């Protein structure tokens, strides 16, 4: 089971590609590669910036598909928790969508771009969403699911 086993090389190289993508976008068009901000602003932001935002988002879908095809055998696996399959996914999606817009960033914007430019706001945000996610998983798996 390649994809669930710990593979340090894939994680490190994959992470470097994520960092490279952020640098490319910043170096070329001067924008921060924060996916939540780019998606949110593609929906409700300035019309003039909509084309590049949509191009970037479409690129993510294409790049993921191409990588998955070239590696082979990749299927994301969801494990429904104690609340069942779709109610948990819907609740999670709503919280991720609302939270990332309220907190002005997600794992890419705060976690990679923000930390890379030593933003104190991004450091605080990253520590908080990591801590909150860790507590949530603990409660789901070891308190409710125990």
């Amino acid at each position, binding site marked *: 089971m390649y*994809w669930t086993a710990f*593979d340090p090389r*894939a*994680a*490190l190289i994959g*992470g*470097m590609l*994520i960092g*490279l993508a*952020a*640098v490319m*976008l*910043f*170096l*070329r*068009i*001067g924008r*921060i*590669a924060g*996916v939540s901000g780019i*998606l949110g602003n593609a*929906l409700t932001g300035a019309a003039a910036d909509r084309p*590049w935002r949509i191009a*970037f*988002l479409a*690129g*993510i879908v294409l790049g*993921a*598909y*191409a990588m998955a095809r070239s590696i082979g055998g*990749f299927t*994301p*696996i*969801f*494990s429904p*928790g104690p609340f069942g399959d*779709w109610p948990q*996914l*819907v609740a*999670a*999606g709503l*919280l*991720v*969508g*609302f939270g*990332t817009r*309220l*907190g*002005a960033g997600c794992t*890419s914007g705060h*976690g990679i771009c923000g930390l*890379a*430019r030593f933003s104190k*706001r991004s450091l*605080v*945000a990253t520590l908080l*969403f990591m801590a*909150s996610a860790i507590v949530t998983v603990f409660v*789901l*798996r070891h308190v409710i699911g125990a």
Partner: protein
Amino acid sequence: MLRLISALVAGVVLGAGLVLSGMANPQKVLAFLDLASFAQGGWDPSLALVMAGGLLVAVPGFAYARSRGKPALADSFDLPSATAIDGRLVLGSLVFGIGWGLAGICPGPALAILSLDGHQAFTFFGAMVAGMLIFHLWSRRA
């Protein structure tokens, strides 16, 4: 046009990186977030390496970009202007973390898995977009 191609290429690299790194696999993300599994030997440290790999490239990359003064295809770098650590940042990050912990999916991977997974990816993506739109309506009111 060049701007569009640059954005598209950066997106492609990001999507490829998300899949290769395992970030687009919710099971792997949750295995990292499950710190308590460390005691049972089941903890997966991958995500820390993903972050390390990302910063290994992004820290010097951003420093180099800023040393050039301006981006290749725009007049200036568009950086966030906010500097204060306010209630919105704190609350938003905490709420995001709860959602991330519930499904193991954050916004980048939510897009990356659209073509790789069946209805579950679309269910999550639709709900995430709804959450963003709810925020938009709510923040215009507030």
